[in-house]
């Protein structure tokens, strides 16, 4: 049967038709070989638009479809499904982008129309060579992996577990809880962070469907959507998890003191320590870098004291594999280290704190027992809170960290509440962004508590006569100000984890320009990634507050469950094949394949592709000296046809070579 091609040119309202003469492009397409129908329409992706295609396939014998509209990354699947509904193999479809790549980026309407015609000609030339391809179905492993045990990871794990599916929750710290476990109160309701997060942490530990792996990291991910094999590295705790009762006796006599990470350096912990007072699990861990016994010195105090004999200095790391169908990444954020911003004096002046340190100071189980005190044990009479430290700053992070305004307001309230109403509180802000539910109301409440707001990013914090002075410009009044205070709190930016690039590599996903993990679509796909079966939850994708992180995590859990509930997934047939009649058996492809999907069949003397392992990258096809290796849907004939369609459709105007005497011959018409 000869190819009967239908071409459909979209207007996208005025998005395309505002620049590109869509009816003109459709008319041009009619002249291309094999085209029997060519139409233009306001919105091809709408129901009437899709019906137009279906109707032509059913009643006009169209057996190849070309749509010229937005990016195929947006609507290729939409139109492939429409073709399938009409009974046409969805791979007999080609989409070309005349919106993102033409109408939105070209100044001159004539040139835009010409470029659109080139692209349509290329798509028509290519679609001639499309072949019948059929997706294969694969089973989806029902288990889900959640990486990161902060509030987002906890929420995702609980949601998945509640459905009856098994969850592996991997956390690299000795306890789950994440940053939320460090907080004291939460804005705007001022309920205590521990009161709302510890029940969830305990629920994780008690849920029979959740396999909790703390002090562990994912080191390798193999496989594809529905069938991932994940290697987990479990670091040695040096405490037998089965024997330990969590009594805490061992913590008391340890002679080694180490700066506490959980307390943000405000106080110390022992070499054997419980990550936080509400650790889940409550089993301590020995820090091998500081423990006397593990560094070869004489001690063994904890081993002598432990009533259940749980201390095991000989414990070693374990690596094991997990089989899962999908993965939720909830690896969280780091806070910016303000020490390099020397103008604010962090690390130099003892009374300059980061927001997380201030958070610990407010916490009832923190270093000061929840009292706001300076290093000399006295409460401050005045506090300056510097917003946007490292956020909205071209030298650090251009983005807004989204939470600082609100927690700064929370600090305002807590200082007034704990230290006394007479305490002066100064906020140095750029804009107050109180966008969430109940946030604006909270701002109003704090404003009424006699807090001072100065609009302007401080230039520096200096020390004069033993007191800190914040130097800034009040940009509303247009005057320079020097505010003497006892204490300074820096609202440091949320930033991607220091090892986010390494994590992205392990899981095969990308980072955005800001370093956070890149979502599939900024608006309509904020949870999924470009890699099928890998989802994002919480602040690993962008700065978020707690309600947004929890909502995002539930979204990721729903995505993972959708895969698990369906039980099967369609795998694209666009993988590689090697034609045994052409293959010379040189084995170049065997070494090139990054997935070890090509094996050499010694009996026949040819290379063979294992289609279940092939991802369709085409490394073999790009190299094969004999042309035996081909990627389905991206084979040589198809690419050559597209190329020639692109270059031959319209004659280029004869262009004189600058400086040349003679006219070069016109390009091929």
């Amino acid at each position: 049967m000869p190819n009967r091609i239908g071409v459909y040119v979209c207007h996208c309202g005025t998005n395309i038709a505002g620049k590109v003469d869509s009816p003109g492009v459709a008319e041009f397409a009619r002249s291309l070989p094999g085209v029997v129908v060519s139409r233009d329409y306001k919105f091809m992706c709408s129901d009437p638009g899709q019906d137009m295609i279906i109707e032509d396939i059913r009643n006009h014998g169209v057996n190849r479809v070309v749509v010229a509209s937005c990016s195929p990354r947006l609507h290729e699947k939409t139109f492939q499904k429409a073709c399938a509904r009409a009974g046409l193999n969805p791979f007999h479809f080609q989409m070309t982008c005349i919106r993102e790549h033409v109408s939105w980026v070209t100044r001159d309407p004539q040139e835009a129309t010409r470029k659109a015609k080139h692209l349509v000609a290329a798509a028509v030339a290519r679609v001639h060579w499309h072949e019948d391809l059929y997706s294969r179905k694969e089973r989806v492993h029902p288990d889900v992996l959640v990486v990161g045990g902060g509030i987002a990871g906890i929420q995702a794990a609980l949601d998945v577990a509640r459905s009856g599916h098994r969850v592996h929750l991997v956390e690299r710290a000795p306890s789950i809880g994440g940053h939320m476990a460090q907080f004291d109160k939460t804005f705007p309701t001022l309920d205590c962070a521990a009161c709302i997060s510890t029940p969830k942490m305990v629920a994780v530990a008690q849920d029979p469907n959740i396999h909790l792996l703390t002090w562990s990291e994912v080191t390798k991910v193999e496989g594809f959507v529905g069938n991932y094999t994940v290697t987990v590295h479990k670091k040695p705790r040096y405490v037998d998890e089965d024997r330990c009762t969590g009594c805490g006796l061992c913590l008391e006599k340890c002679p080694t003191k180490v700066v506490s990470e959980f307390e943000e350096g405000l106080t110390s912990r022992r070499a054997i320590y419980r990550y936080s007072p509400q650790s889940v699990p409550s089993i301590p861990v020995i820090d091998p870098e500081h423990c006397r016994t593990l560094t070869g010195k004489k001690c063994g105090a904890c081993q002598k004291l432990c009533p259940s004999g749980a201390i095991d200095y000989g414990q070693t790391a374990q690596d094991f594999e997990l089989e899962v169908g999908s993965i939720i990444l909830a690896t969280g954020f780091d806070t910016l280290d303000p020490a390099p911003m020397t103008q604010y004096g962090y690390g130099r002046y003892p009374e300059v704190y980061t927001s997380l340190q201030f958070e610990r100071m407010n916490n009832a189980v923190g270093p000061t027992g929840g009292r706001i005190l300076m290093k000399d044990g006295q409460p401050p009479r005045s506090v300056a809170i510097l917003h946007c430290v490292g956020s909205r700053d071209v030298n650090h992070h251009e983005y807004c960290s989204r939470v600082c305004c609100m927690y700064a307001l929370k600090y305002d309230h807590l200082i007034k509440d704990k230290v006394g109403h007479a305490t002066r509180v100064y906020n140095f802000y750029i804009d107050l962004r109180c966008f969430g539910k109940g946030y604006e109301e909270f701002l109003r409440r704090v404003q009424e508590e006699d807090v001072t707001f100065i609009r302007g990013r401080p230039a520096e914090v200096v020390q004069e006569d033993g007191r800190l002075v914040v130097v800034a410009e009040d940009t509303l009044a247009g005057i320079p100000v020097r505010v003497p205070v006892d204490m300074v709190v820096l609202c440091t930016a949320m930033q991607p984890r220091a090892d986010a690039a390494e994590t992205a590599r392990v899981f095969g996903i990308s980072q955005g320009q800001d370093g956070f993990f890149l979502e599939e679509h900024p608006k309509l796909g904020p949870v999924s990634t470009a890699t099928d079966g890998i989802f994002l939850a919480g602040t690993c994708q962008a700065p978020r507050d707690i309600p947004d992180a929890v909502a995002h995590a539930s979204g990721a859990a729903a995505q993972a469950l959708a895969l698990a509930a369906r039980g099967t997934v369609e795998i694209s047939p666009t993988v590689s094949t090697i034609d045994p009649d052409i293959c010379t058996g040189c084995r170049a492809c065997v070494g090139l394949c990054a997935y070890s999907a090509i094996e050499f069949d010694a009996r026949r003397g040819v290379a063979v592709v294992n289609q279940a392992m092939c991802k369709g990258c085409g490394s073999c096809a790009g190299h094969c000296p004999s042309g035996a290796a081909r990627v389905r849907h991206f084979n040589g004939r198809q690419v050559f046809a597209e190329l020639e369609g692109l270059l031959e459709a319209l004659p280029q105007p004869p262009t004189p070579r600058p400086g040349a005497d003679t006219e070069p011959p016109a390009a091929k018409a």
Partner: protein
Amino acid sequence: MSQFEPTIVAFVCNWCTYTAADLAGTSRMLQPYNVKLIRMMCTGMVDPKYIIRALLSGADAVLVSGCHPGDCHYINGNYKARRRVKLLQEMLAQFGIDQRRLKLTWIGASEGNDFARTVAELVEEIRALGPNEARAVATL
């Protein structure tokens, strides 16, 4: 004498540079119209034959653009492209085609501005270079 307008074909990978081109479009970053994209799944599947054919069929330059080193969606396809392009550039010179007519770049999915800038700079460079030497040969 009207200005020479080159025709440039770009083989770009679906995961990074094609996505960056989409982002450049969504962000309305105006670009010269001369560069036309051919979407590949990975730069590692760009057979040198495609590039040669493009240069012999009227393209004044070819751009191959993929994910940054280490970011390849298929582990290391971009490294394979880098080797092939390097070798091909050496060969092109021997056939009298300026090496600058074949360019390899890495443009990540979030770098729409990089894409628009690369396209603009390439067009400028090829405009200065003039029409492809191979065009005359191919049409003889």
